[in-house]
């Protein structure tokens, strides 16, 4: 089993790699799309802005290989911005096309009252809408670590696996077949995060 972490120049890859290794995986950080051919699992991490990230994925030659990977049913996990990039388009800093792997768009969080601040920073609960292998053995309303200002709006309810109550409610876990995403950072969510990563590593494709 080889996990490839997509390095397109955005964000903190060391902690994703270290967390995957802690979960028993051989994890390789790669800036070469050719390495995807050997991957049993792929992680698309990222912090930063949507448009910048898509431009970097395009420049690095990642977009077609990632779409092929999804079509082949290789498990793909997008984390934070990486989850948002799975959508059709994002509205951060103007409209930008996404990878289009899960129908949806990415829009800004809007505070419901003065107590709610954006960015949404900190630990908040994740409630599954239905059973999903990614959340196996994770208690309902377990807290995970979030840090983001935009969120994923899924076109189809079947792709919204879990929600989190903030600025109303937003989708915090998505899945379409072997393509998954978490708005929170499992690699920074201590024990619950490790559980989720192990669940991802145990998956062999479609839910």
């Amino acid at each position, binding site marked *: 089993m080889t996990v490839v972490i997509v390095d397109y120049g955005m964000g903190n890859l060391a902690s994703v790699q270290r967390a995957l290794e802690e979960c028993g995986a051989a994890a390789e950080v790669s800036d070469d799309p050719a390495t995807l051919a050997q991957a049993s699992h792929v992680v698309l991490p990222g912090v930063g802005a949507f448009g910048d990230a898509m431009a970097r994925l395009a420049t690095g030659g990642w977009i077609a290989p990632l779409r092929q990977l999804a079509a082949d049913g290789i498990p793909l996990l997008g984390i934070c911005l990486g989850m948002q990039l799975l959508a059709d388009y994002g509205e951060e800093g103007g409209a930008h096309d996404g990878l289009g792997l899960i129908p949806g768009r990415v829009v800004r969080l809007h505070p419901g009252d003065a107590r709610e601040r954006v960015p949404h*920073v900190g630990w908040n609960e994740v409630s599954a809408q239905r059973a999903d292998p990614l959340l196996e053995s994770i208690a309902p309303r377990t807290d995970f670590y979030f840090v983001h200002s935009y969120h994923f709006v899924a076109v189809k309810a079947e792709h919204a696996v879990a929600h989190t109550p903030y600025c109303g409610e937003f989708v915090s876990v998505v899945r379409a077949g072997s393509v998954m995403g978490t708005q929170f950072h499992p690699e920074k969510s201590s024990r619950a995060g490790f559980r989720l990563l192990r669940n991802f590593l145990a998956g062999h494709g479609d839910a």
Partner: protein
Amino acid sequence: MLKVRVIPTLLWKDGSLVKGTGFDSWRRIGAAMPAIKVYNTRDVDELVLMDVTATADGRGPDLAEIDALARECFVPFTVGGGVASVETVRDLLRAGADKVIVNSAAYSNPALVTEAALRFGSQCVVAAIDVLRGDDGAYVCCARSGSQRMGIGPVAWAQRLEQLGAGEILLTRIERDGTLQGYDIELAAQVTAAVSIPVIAAGGAGSYDDMLQALRGGGASAVAAGAMFQFTEQTPREAKQFLAAHGIPVRAAAN
């Protein structure tokens, strides 16, 4: 519901952790790695590491050390000290920091905050504001570990930092730092009312009740504490139990 964060702060200087009082008189208290490992097992909400003399020494952060510490840190890791360029922000994120603290450099080069936010996202740019109370009773922001008064008040500077793209504010009342006498609640209240980004209260925590006051009266989204956790028997876990008992939402300890 979003939980309030209780954040141990580690002050770092020349290879070891230090304690100071009022941003001065640093004294060595031990190595950083064991502290990170202990906090990791205790499931803290986040860790802050400040290199307290990087700016004064005119150097950047010790990236190798940050890298080694980040590899052992499975909760959010926020790092500051000596961040003077967007390249340093990038290097720290590469080394494993999740968020980077910008302080002194923001006064002379406000564009740094904006550039970092555009490139890496507002969510990883924490703007630190260090505040003294002058003889006239007015708050004034200070750069370079409190040694340089900047002639702007914390409310105006916090609003400016938010406009520039900062995702969070780390607010420290300098004279309280290391004293265990409690946060400056009035200062926290003024700043939290003026911005819509999260504010972390810092400087002076000595008891769980101090934290409660900073959250309730001060409106803070998180509370940071250094000496309180290192030099008293009090722990982040007990702090959260105390806060929970007073109706504050906190993250329960994981099983």
